[in-house]
């Protein structure tokens, strides 16, 4: 049962990701991304990480994607000649390169996938505390998912947590600096 649900969700996530890069219309790309991100949220549920699943839906599917769609719809792409191949940067890669790159990607995926299938993640030795959280409080007794994440975030992972806020701030400033036009 778990495997079945996982396969369906993983398939949806893959289909969404492929849709993002194949779609010509950016709106369809964004919708493909929505499908992919939602499927990943489903995968988190399968892993008993319901808090992360909800956050994934709220932040990515809810926040980030809506912003994406706003930008796509507000900026008239056709007017700027970005709706077709005209907007592509640089010379088109030759079909040979495309096939080679695709083959390489598929080969690597199969390689890693086969290795992962041989070695179910559950048997990982000495899985850390974060791992326990992802498996829904398996390692910590009475505490639930949310408490676990909170506790880790404000103890062991405090420094990375603060750092992530600096990172987001820097990224925001960078975007403003680059996009802002002097009047």
């Amino acid at each position, binding site marked *: 049962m778990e495997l079945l649900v996982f396969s369906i969700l993983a398939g949806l996530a893959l289909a969404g990701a492929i849709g993002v890069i194949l779609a010509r219309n950016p709106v369809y790309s964004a919708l493909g991304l929505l499908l992919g991100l939602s499927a990943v949220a489903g995968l988190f549920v399968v892993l008993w990480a319901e808090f992360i699943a909800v956050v994934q839906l709220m932040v990515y599917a809810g926040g980030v994607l809506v912003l994406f769609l706003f930008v796509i719809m507000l900026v008239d792409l056709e007017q700027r000649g970005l709706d077709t191949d005209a907007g592509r940067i640089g010379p088109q890669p030759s079909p040979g390169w495309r096939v080679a790159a695709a083959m390489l990607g598929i080969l690597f995926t199969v390689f890693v996938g086969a290795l992962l299938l041989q*070695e179910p993640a559950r048997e990982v030795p000495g899985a850390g505390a974060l791992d326990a959280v992802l498996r829904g409080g398996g390692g910590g007794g009475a505490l639930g998912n949310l408490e676990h994440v909170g506790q880790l975030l404000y103890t*062991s992972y405090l420094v*990375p947590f603060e*750092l992530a806020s600096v990172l987001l701030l820097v990224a925001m400033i960078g975007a403003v*600096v680059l996009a802002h036009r002097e009047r």
Partner: protein
Amino acid sequence: MPEFEIQVVLPTLVPAAYGLLLLLFTPALRDDRRWLWAVSLGGMALAAFFPAWLLFRAGATGETAGLPGRPMVVMDPLSLWLDLLFAIAGFLALLLVPAYLDRARAHRPEIYPLMLLAVAGMTILVATTNLVMIFLGLEVLSIPLYVMSGLTREREASIEAAFKYFLLGAVAAAFLVYGIALVYAATGHLDLGDVATAAGAVLETGGARAGLLAAGLAMILVAFAFKVGAVPFHFWAPDVYQGAPTPVTAFMAVGTKAAAFGVLLRLLPGTAGAAEALARRWLPVVAALAVATMVGGNLVALVQVRVKRMLAWSSIAHAGYLLLALLAPLAIGARNLLFYLVVYTFMTIGAFAVVSLFQEEEGDDADQLDRFAGLWKRRPLLAIAMGIFMLSLAGIPPMGGFTGKYVIFVTALRTGHPVLAAVMGLAAVVGAAYYLRVITTMFLREPSGELPAGVSVSLAPGLVLAVSAVLTIVLGLAPGLVLGPLGEIASGMIGP
């Protein structure tokens, strides 16, 4: 629980806090650039002072300090030494900024806080053994660099540089995250020390988990090979180095390289120290990267007609020498690597400082080789300074660059890599050709055409040139001054 020791995060906290404060005041002081500049210089000086002070207090073999538990932040002589180097590189690059931006007619006060934040990112990167922190540090360092590359929007090349660097950098970041995920899948750990311990057991049993570990480490290696510009992950470097404002290029070439090699120093020997089998696997990969980088960088640099682009390829070639240093046993390899990074910092910033003076009236770079013709007759001091940097980059004896190359070369010979040493020697000889071409152009050719307007050295760039030139020579004449302490640091590093 041990007490939280603020000093552990001081080298990161100072530039980060300073950068954020500066951001806060930038809107109010937008028009008072000199003031902003002076304040950011002060911040960079503080960012250099704290690691230096802590290093002095701890001594070269000093103790490692960390936050409670499995430390997210470690402070050891290696991290402090590199922190000092980043801040010095940032300081020298900042000195070049106002003159360059004025001539480029780009009023971009944002560059000052961004430079400080990039330094903060670098200090995080080298002061942790946790893979999550490494990822965050790399991003905190990279994003300001993407933005700074595109700050002179009036030049199309600058926008191209920012865009290329951002897109390819994002791909590299994806590689890093995927690699970290695979390493975690194989070992169940994110801390490099734990990973190394687990890796030993994993490799002993072999099987799928060993494959995952190898794939993960390979992807992490790819990400950092990209950041240092090692062939074949160098495609971004020439365009980005050429397009970015020259002071930013100087900072990027030096700082990013030092930070990435700092991580590699922890990552590769760290995982190998516990598992000889792993070392046998990654050594050939790094060796192949080093050969491709040394040969590729030097050969392509040979045909460049723009000095800035030539220096970009030269910086790729230097990444190759540094990779070669990484192959030696840790105690000596780390010493050579750190010494080369120090020399490289001064000679590269010096060379880019000279190039940053060559600008057209409209603010574009005027770095064609022909523009340097007869510089000796027009600006003798500038020609001498550039000559020093070129000789040092080429590795000609009295200069620091020679000593750096020499120790790497000899170590490679003695530790059983004679072929690699031979490749390095040949690559350096080929490389000398294009550095010497700059010198012959400056000293032997007759001046022709107008000298670019910027080539009247003002105080700040002059200071950069003087400091870099003097230190390049001093490091060549008395390398023991730095090699000695670095040797102690390196021998204290064994074992993660």
